């Protein structure tokens, strides 16, 4: 609910105005000063964060410049750092996760707003919401001991058998791999995409559906021709919001992706992401250059997620103005 002024507040504006600074008591001034301090601390904190990451990454930025994002060699001993495999892995795992999660979460959101019996809607949404509450490290634990053995025994061999001629499904089957990490990521971002797109769909005016149904459309046709097109922008926002989550997700990915600084064509091969590299190497980094390179990675990740989230927010806001859609998930 970023739209600020609701009707009662606007009506009461004169009340606030009556307290000009001259008339404000000492208590009022102290109170306002304290609140201002609290509110100001948030932008100050962000400024400080950007400053610290910028300064912290200076060494790596000056040494490697743009080659940091175009080269693949990552050798802490020789102080040579190229983050291309990290960037590639982050983008690929997030993309694959969305590929799985988007149809699934849109299906759930549409079912819950258009088809499900009324009494089931909120309970199902709550249950799926619980998925968002599970800590990332628990997903990682489950992924290592349950998901990977399962995938390795059934799904991966089947994929290899059916599509083994494609470079994507070539080579030996490792447990920890790009595909395993993407699947766990998909499970993790699904509740976010689901809940935001559900809110967006709920914000579609009822007249939109009724018009389609009145013209003789079946319920599915009403959804496809009237509801979804109306909510399209907001759904895009929900997806991009999920992308933001996937890009920055750390623990579960670190535990499942295999952590290898390499760009492999096969999805069965281990990979690496930006967040996972920071998580794995930061505490053990020994040289200032290694720290600086990892801070540079963190800075890049920060900038990317801010841009992605700002885009998502803008799209959601354009559709569901004032309905508060997305505010809970952001």
């Amino acid at each position, binding site marked *: 609910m970023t739209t600020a002024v609701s009707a009662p507040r606007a009506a009461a504006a004169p009340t606030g105005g009556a307290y000009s600074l001259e008339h404000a008591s000492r208590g009022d001034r102290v109170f306002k000063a304290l609140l201002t301090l609290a509110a100001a601390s948030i932008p100050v904190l962000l400024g400080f964060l950007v400053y610290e*990451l910028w300064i*912290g990454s200076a060494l790596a930025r000056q040494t490697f410049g743009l080659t940091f994002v175009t080269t693949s060699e990552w050798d802490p001993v020789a102080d040579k750092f190229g983050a291309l495999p990290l960037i590639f892995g982050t983008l690929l795992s997030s993309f694959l996760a969305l590929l799985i999660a988007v149809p699934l979460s849109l*299906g759930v959101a549409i079912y819950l707003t258009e088809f499900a019996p009324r009494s089931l809607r909120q309970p199902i949404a709550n249950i799926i919401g619980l998925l968002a509450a599970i800590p990332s490290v628990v997903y990682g634990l489950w992924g290592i001991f349950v998901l990977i053995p399962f995938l390795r025994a059934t799904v991966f061999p089947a994929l290899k058998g059916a599509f083994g001629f494609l470079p994507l499904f070539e080579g030996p089957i490792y447990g920890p791999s790009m595909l395993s990490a993407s699947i766990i990521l998909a499970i993790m971002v699904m509740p976010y995409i689901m809940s935001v797109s559900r809110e967006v769909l709920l914000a579609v005016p009822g007249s939109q559906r009724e018009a389609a149904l009145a013209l003789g459309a079946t319920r599915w046709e009403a959804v496809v021709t009237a509801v979804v097109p109306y909510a399209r922008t907001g759904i895009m926002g929900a997806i991009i919001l999920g992308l933001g989550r996937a890009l920055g997700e750390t623990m579960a990915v670190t535990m499942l992706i295999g952590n290898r600084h390499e760009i492999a064509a096969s999805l069965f091969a281990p990979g690496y992401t930006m967040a996972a590299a920071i*998580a794995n190497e930061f505490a053990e980094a020994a040289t200032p250059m290694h720290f600086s390179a990892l801070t540079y990675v963190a800075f890049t990740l920060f900038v990317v997620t801010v841009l992605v989230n700002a885009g998502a927010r803008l799209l959601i806001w354009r559709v569901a103005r004032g309905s508060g859609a997305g505010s809970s998930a952001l």
Partner: protein
Amino acid sequence: MNRRLFRRFKSNVMTGVLMACVLAAVLPLLFILGTLLLKGAGSLSLDFFTKMPAPAGENGGGVAHAIVGTLLMVGTACLIGIPIGIGAGVFASEYPGNRLAILSRFVADVLNGTPSIVIGVFAWTWIVARQKHFSGFAGSVALAILMVPMVMRTTEEIIKLVPHSLREAALALGYQRWRTTLQIVLLTALPGILTGALLAVARIAGETAPLLFTALGSQYMGTNLNQPMAALPLTVYTYATGPYEEWHRYAWAAALVLILMVFILNMGARFATRRMARLGG
């Protein structure tokens, strides 16, 4: 006629497909909770909460140090994060059009979308690098930074629900503005604000990434926030990625405790929200 039947048929098939989506979405949750109970519940005993880990190869033992560490760090994070978050939220709702309010609202949303690992790096450069040692306090600060924007945004939303007539009545009776805000508005909104705080606690209690290189984790019982400190999520991570069967058992049990904690906080918050929603009408 045939065409109409086909369209009806298609609609029904698609409904079935959508239901399958719901099933596919709920299944992982059931699987995860199921395995947690199956593998974790057996190791839960009084010892698990009160004892230190037994040496590898021995039975029994617990993760008391991690539970104490989590409670201490989350508690400290609350002490830092909740007052700032509530203060900023009250500011944003009291002066909605104010430039600072708009700015901090926007920045809070930016921070909310920032990966927690980045916050961890920030806490490292800010505190650990300057002090030259890992500490539970640095972990608490990282967690507090994650809390502030969440608490701020919920506080603001909840205060908007307080009927305006209440505020006007207090002002008409000659209350000063700060007393009106504190004693009337905040008190009315308190259950909702606590809900927001609880939800924030539930989220940071399970955070691992920002603690990896701030609190670092520890093998020993410690209550000194100036020292490296253990935490439940860190324990799950270390034990899950370790080589020993015995460690994996700890990891499952610790994960079960963690998830019970998070779910109880969540349920409590939801219950309180429902009461608040009724209040705000």
